[in-house]
């Protein structure tokens, strides 16, 4: 049959992923014990980077901002995904609207950021000439709101898709039976639909947490961590120390810490949301 030699067809993918994904993923541990700027000769410093991070007030500040941003983004994201999926379900315009909601996630990020910037900038923006726009260039809170809106804008289509796929798997007979037994729509939502949506919600919360803990592109494009470091999320702090301040060893140790944090959060959430029945 000649089946065994089919293994070789996977070689290009396996070799390239091994070298450019798996190896760097493990190698980050080695870099994290270096004092290295990328240009200089690396100097081995052991666990010094980790010790410094745990004493670094900027790190804790960045962690705090990331957690605030995460809570601020995840709750409206999940709630909006559920509400939209429910409102869209079975409507004649379900398909085209879903297609539209999905679009921002695929289009050119830099271009999208330009559109947002020219529209919402309190100084130069088009909207500012019609209505007062909060000064997100001066207020860290409003800057976080802007990043939150941009993030939700980009991912809402995916969120709706996840909830919607789950919603369609709920047998209609179940809801009809509840209606026959005299349940109000609110009751059948609370006691039938919502519990059955739990896997989808868990999935969104875990994925969303991972993305907020690690994301930094929106911050880079819209606020660059400002104003006054108010939007310096962990991912952006990592980029800044590594590639603007040239402390690659320190940034590698930060990478390890962010990975561990992500893992801890995702596991805790998955467990919490599963057991809470």
């Amino acid at each position, binding site marked *: 049959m000649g089946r065994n030699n089919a293994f070789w067809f996977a070689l290009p993918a396996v070799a390239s992923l091994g070298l450019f994904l798996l190896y760097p993923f493990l190698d980050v541990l080695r870099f994290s014990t270096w004092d290295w700027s990328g240009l200089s000769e690396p100097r081995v410093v052991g666990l010094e980077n980790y010790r410094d991070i745990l004493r670094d007030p900027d790190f804790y500040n960045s962690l705090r901002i990331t957690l605030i941003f995460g809570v601020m983004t995840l709750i409206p994201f999940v709630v909006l995904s559920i509400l939209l999926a429910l409102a869209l379900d079975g409507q004649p315009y379900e398909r085209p609207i*879903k297609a539209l909601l999905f679009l921002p996630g695929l289009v050119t990020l830099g271009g999208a950021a330009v559109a947002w910037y020219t*529209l919402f900038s309190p100084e130069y923006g088009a909207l500012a000439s019609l209505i007062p726009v909060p000064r997100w260039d001066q207020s860290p809170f409003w800057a976080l709101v802007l990043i939150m809106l941009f993030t939700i804008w980009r991912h809402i289509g995916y969120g709706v898709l996840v909830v919607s796929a789950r919603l369609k798997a709920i047998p209609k007979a179940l809801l009809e039976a509840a209606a026959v037994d005299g349940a109000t729509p609110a009751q059948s939502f609370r006691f039938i639909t919502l519990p059955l949506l739990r896997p989808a919600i868990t999935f969104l919360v875990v994925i969303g947490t991972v993305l907020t803990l690690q994301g930094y592109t929106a911050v880079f494009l819209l606020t660059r961590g400002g104003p006054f470091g108010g939007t310096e999320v962990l991912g952006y702090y990592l980029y800044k120390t590594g590639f603007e301040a040239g402390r690659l060893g320190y940034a590698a140790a930060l990478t390890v810490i962010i990975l561990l944090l992500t893992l801890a959060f995702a596991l805790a959430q998955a467990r919490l949301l599963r057991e809470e029945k």
Partner: protein
Amino acid sequence: MRWLGHLLVWTVAFLVALPFIWMAYAAFIPPEAVFSGNIFGQLGFSLANFEVLGREGFWEGFWGRLLFSVLLTGGVTLLQLTTGFLAAYAIKEGARLLPFFLVLLAIPVELLLVPLYGLLVGLKILDTIWALVLPFAASPFIVYLLFQGMRTVPEELLEAARIDGAGHRVLLTRILLPLLRPQLIAAGVLAFAAHWNLVLYPRIVAGSKELKTVQTWITDLQRQNPADWGPLSAAALAATLPLVIIYLLYERRIVETFEEGLKG
């Protein structure tokens, strides 16, 4: 209750579409309207903003960067589809590699900037085109999507072809390639968008002028002239439109692919 649902959907839909509508409008604003501050007062139509984009000379200006990015990302997409197609075939044929790719799927690529940079320095390909190509030669996500597609091909079909003396090459090119066309298209669009939307990575590993991607070019322009939105919007529109068109052509396929992926 029902009208509340309609209201929510259409409000969100409008807000989601707003930046696109604005981008298309601002790209054609006459420059005088921007400087006089009267943006919505008189409707004007002008191509001046697009002319400004070509000013720096072709290859280092916007149009050259757009062409460079399309070729680069197009090439990377073809490469990913090829390696992914072959790997999916190997798994279909019995190579026990699916767990390997699924584990890799969980590795957050965005976080690997530092070790990847170190690796590129070690391989001496920093600031070359290879830094933008080789790390993206394969994608576990694409392998997974194409394998999902191949799972639906009945084994009897391949068995019958084999009895007729078909080798790997015939199975791959004559049978699986046409059958997997829809999955290849969806995977291709997603792979294209993923590479096209890299923002920080190209800036870090390939910063020189002749390697700048269109994303970097736009971000730089935004940094230099934040108030000059005419040309900014024109560049944003020209860089976004190709993706929007591809997406609209294959929208149904792409959304379905995501839905299938969710069923896992």
